[in-house]
């Protein structure tokens, strides 16, 4: 009937998928958690990104902002990921076939690669940046790519729910 592969159809029709989809309370609760955890994940991260770009929080030492705020954002992302997987499970076919959802995954991967590269490489000299009002170019780029990709993730995620096109 649809073009989704067997595993997607199996997820959608599994007890977990059907259970979340058809529950009066479960789907709204998981969905509300997914949306409000945005504040803890992207909401906190975006302030670090603004600091990285030299656009905000200018008086806060950048290494402190990173050390104090990233653990919080990480917990936020764990909540986002778990609730996101559950939402996908319950609407696997719709998501798989949605162009917006595919775009969301692409931007999620981009955001992940950008964050990984920052944490493993760029960040090494972060203590030195405290001395400058504006961080080096590679740090500013990391902040910019992060903000753009997470904005795209949110837009694509919202559009997936509306099933616009």
């Amino acid at each position, binding site marked *: 009937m649809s073009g989704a592969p067997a595993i997607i159809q199996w997820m959608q029709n599994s007890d977990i998928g059907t259970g979340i989809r058809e529950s009066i309370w479960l789907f709204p609760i998981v*969905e509300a958690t997914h*949306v409000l955890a945005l504040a803890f994940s992207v909401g*906190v991260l975006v302030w670090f990104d603004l600091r990285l770009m030299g656009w905000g*929080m200018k*008086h806060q030492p950048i290494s402190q902002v990173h050390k104090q705020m990233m653990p919080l954002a990480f917990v936020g992302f764990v909540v986002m990921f778990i609730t996101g997987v559950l939402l996908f499970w319950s609407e696997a076919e719709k998501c798989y076939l949605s162009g917006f959802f595919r775009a969301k995954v692409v931007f999620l991967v981009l955001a992940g690669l950008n964050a990984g590269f920052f944490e493993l490489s760029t960040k090494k000299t972060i203590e030195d940046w405290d001395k400058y009002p504006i961080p080096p170019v590679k740090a500013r780029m990391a902040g910019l790519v992060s903000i753009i990709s997470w904005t795209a993730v949110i837009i694509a995620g919202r559009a997936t729910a509306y099933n616009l096109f």
Partner: protein
Amino acid sequence: MHYLLPFFKWCDSTWLGETIRSSRIYFPVIETFHLLALTVLFGAVIVLNLRLCRLIMKHQPVQQLAKDLSPWALWSLVVILVSGVLLFLSEAMKCYASKPFQVKMMFLFAALIFHFSIHWKVTRADRDPGILSGVFVGGVNFLLWFGVGLGGRAIGFL
């Protein structure tokens, strides 16, 4: 609340409300701006209130952190309020009948009043607040804003 019914009817019949309703695209687009701005504002709310509770950024003065967060947070609030009014105009009659909408508006007014009075005063004072008043003011501010968020999400479900 029937004395407000004419007001809701008028909102529902405004040119803006009807224009947004007439398109499939306008509402989702406006709502996306609402959500993006909410992300920035709530991020600031979380950071500042956790600082008041002395859980993060302990070595930074509250006043400086509050000032650093302010410009983006206030502009986000403007975007949220403008987009929120537009969304409301497009479905004012649905909101009139919605319990979550009433709850959200009560939380919103309480949050705005608390934020720009007690919370503002405490976070702009020259000296950091004590731990008890910090936890109290930070906790109340956080709960009020998240009441707004939860109420808003519930409008779409209930």
